[in-house]
């Protein structure tokens, strides 16, 4: 087991190195003059040279990369030359916002989607199933951006039930202290995920309901509710759990749209803006964070499989 873990750790380090090299090189081969893009068309040659010098852009690419790597290993993710703050402070400030928003939305989505999917499976091809399927397709095909704007138009502008913005507090505690302002962004994210999860849950539950052990449980005289809870629900959750794991990087991608519509600063939007504005340190820093999280998640999953299934260790 130790050998397996070491091997996987080595692979993880290689993947991370490859990721950073790839992003670093891609950023630096983009045509055009970066300093000019940042400083504007009126910048003098001296100003451009000073900018390149200050940011190490006048050094060979390999040296720039090694410096970046050295800084990362010392916990320094870089400095944004547009936002005038360190990438570390951006991450510390904005990541909690994303975790709160996406965390609550995913929890809500699961709370709705799991029983809904099971109910649809049990009442397959009946009115509830048809209505829920239609609703799921409608929500899933609707861009989160559009859904968010619709909710704002109806519930914030129309009836003034909720504010159109997410909480504007500077701390996670402050954000949680304004639950009414979280309602619309959370609903937006949750509804899209309900549609996704409920479809998977329905399919898995239909499969499970057809299994022999479910028939046996029923034949033994177990009440329907117990069969559903003990046998159908638990065994149907596997694909949903996998899907949940895959949606962790969605903290960035899914959150972006909601951050944009509901004025909720988060890493997704910061990453997007960094890409659009050629703020390379921010792009690289967030890439490292997400890369580490993804690789670590994958590593933990592999280790968990190895614990559960000895064949993986020796395969």
């Amino acid at each position, binding site marked *: 087991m130790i050998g397996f873990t070491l091997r996987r750790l080595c692979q993880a380090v290689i993947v991370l190195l490859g990721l950073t090299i790839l992003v670093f090189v891609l950023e630096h081969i983009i045509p055009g003059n970066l300093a000019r893009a940042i*400083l504007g068309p009126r910048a*003098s040659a001296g100003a451009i040279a000073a900018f390149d010098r200050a940011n190490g852009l006048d050094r060979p690419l390999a040296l720039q990369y090694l410096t970046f790597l050295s800084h990362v290993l010392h916990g320094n993710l870089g400095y944004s030359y*547009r936002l*005038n703050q360190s990438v570390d402070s951006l991450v510390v*400030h904005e990541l909690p916002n994303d975790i709160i928003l996406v965390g609550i939305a995913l929890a809500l989505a699961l709370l709705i989607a799991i029983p809904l999917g099971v109910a649809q499976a049990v009442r397959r091809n009946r009115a509830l199933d048809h209505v829920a399927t239609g609703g799921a397709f409608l929500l899933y095909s609707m861009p989160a951006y559009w859904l968010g704007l619709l909710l704002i138009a109806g519930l*914030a502008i129309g009836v003034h039930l909720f504010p*159109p913005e997410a909480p*504007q507090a500077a701390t996670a505690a402050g954000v949680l202290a304004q639950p009414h302002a979280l309602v619309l962004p959370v609903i937006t994210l949750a509804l899209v995920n309900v549609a996704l999860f409920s479809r998977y849950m329905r399919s898995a539950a239909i499969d499970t309901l057809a299994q022999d052990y479910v028939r046996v449980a029923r034949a033994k005289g177990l009440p329907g509710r117990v069969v559903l809870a003990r046998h159908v629900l638990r065994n149907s959750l596997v694909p949903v759990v996998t899907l949940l794991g895959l949606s962790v990087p969605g903290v960035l991608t899914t959150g972006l749209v909601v951050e944009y519509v509901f*004025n909720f600063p988060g890493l997704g939007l910061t990453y997007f803006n960094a890409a659009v504005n050629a703020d390379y340190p921010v792009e690289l820093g967030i890439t490292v964070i997400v890369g580490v999280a993804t690789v670590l998640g994958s590593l933990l999953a592999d280790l968990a499989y190895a614990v559960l299934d000895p064949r993986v260790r020796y395969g």
Partner: protein
Amino acid sequence: MSLACVGLGACGPSKNGSESGIAAVTTGAGRIIDGGTAYFAEQPETPPDYIFPVVSGQYFTVENTADFQTLLYEPLYWFGDKASTSIDYPLSIGNPPVYSDGDRVVTITLKHYVWSNGETVSARDVIFWINLLKANPDQWASYVPGGFPDNVKWATAPNATTVRLQLNAAYNPIWYTYNELSQITPLPLAWDRTSLSSPVPKPGSSHLPDSTPSGSKSVYNFLNAQATRVASYASSPIWSVVDGPWRLIGLTDDGMATFVPNRRFSGPNKPRLAKFIELPYTSAAAEFSVLRAGSATGGPGSPSSGDQISVGYVPDNDLPQSGALRSQGYQLVDWYPFQFDYFEPNFNNPTVGPILRQLYFRQAFQHLVDQLGWVHAYYGGLGVPTYGPVPASPPNPYADANASVNPYPFSIPDAQKLLGGHGWKVVPNGVTTCTRPGTGPRECGQAIRAGEGLNFTLLYPSGLPYTDGSMVDLQSVAKQVGIEISLKEVTPTTIASTILTCTPSQPACSWELGQYGAGWVFEPDHYPSGEEIFETGALGNVSNYSNPVTDKLIAATTTTPAAGAQAALDAYQNQVRVELPNFWQPSPGTLVTVQSNLHGFIPNAYGFISPEEWYFTKG
């Protein structure tokens, strides 16, 4: 010795009143209330993040300068108040400058202003600024080699309220005041140090660090390092010394800036508001949602931030909904900065450069730009056409009578005629080709080959609906005279790093036509002369335009004595208007929303905000 009365405001009222129509919008009945909090919407994802007025290019944004720094640190001269394009001497620290010795010496006297630490704003504070710029020109976004402060041979402070500058040549006093002295912001001596632990200099201290170039570099490095600590701005012993009407008491990581009045402010417009807060937004859509859902009435006892925006803006995409905002009670105010707008030909492009260098071709192409149609169809009516380098709008004393006359009105037949008359076989909806190469008067022109077609690639920035629409229209119209335009929509950053000055042999010269999506705003150079954009080799001359006649006329605008300054400016603008160093297109405006009971907001011609002039009313 000649003495010149500089600045139109100093010589009497400007010939174009600028308050009409605007003041009426924001003047309402009701009792004036002292106090209340006004909330101001920042542009999306551009929070204030740099406080030191010696600002380098990457932080040189309206949000850092006009919306933030100038609230705290007063420039020597204040421009643009109440939509005027002149200096506002009553609002300025400096009295009108006096030019002598054949316009080679400038003498500036200062009014009695004090810093918040009780010290007087003195001539030494102006010298401090000049010393910092001289030692660190590459860190100053507005620096132009040969310009200010290179053109200052020496600067002295003969007494506490007088600054004297010896210039390296004779300059047009109006130009020098509006474009060079306009860049000065007095800095407190409390900043003249190289560490927080070093003693705080006092007035009269000698051998201050900025007295030598190396010392000035050290001071700059110290202050720039302090400016990277955004979270500590409000509590900083450096940045808390202000002479502006406001004092910063908070700035969050997201960019929410909170100001309260500076009780020691010496200027005439003392703030009436109790607090002024700038609110950050992740998108224009988010800002618009708050406008629509929020309260159109503010003042003491009104809802908190997040529920209201006192002064906001209608995003371009949402202009059709402006009626709904008016129904809510908002006042709507058009804001046109003093600017002109254009898109760029690359005269040095090795392929299409020879075509673009032909004046008849540029004239034909300009005839295809339907400016009035674009304003109506794509700008939501919120735009003004551009016909030359000195815009007629907003009303200003610099534009001559021709400024509002389009020399090349939209006309497809005129474009066809110009091309056909110069050796091109015009093929509507095909590709027009050169059939008579040569340099004669009815031939295509130098370096244009027989059979060469009119094909161009045009780069334009994403995210601007009016640009998107107008460029597609241009493509469609050009097709009707056989000009094939390939549109390429890219990010604004790509535009900024691609549309560059270049020589034909450089790979960077491959761009053909392009536009920044933003016009040329006369800030911080407020006089509409063209030395920074149309002069051969100028930093802003990215189209690589070069014409000795134009260069000579531009030089005259910067050197002619005050008495002949307008004539020189007229000669320049008439030349450039018809010469077409770039293609004119409409300048977009901004539709500003103001809460129904907030008054005193009048757009500044140069983009500054003055919340010290705002107040709420009741009843």
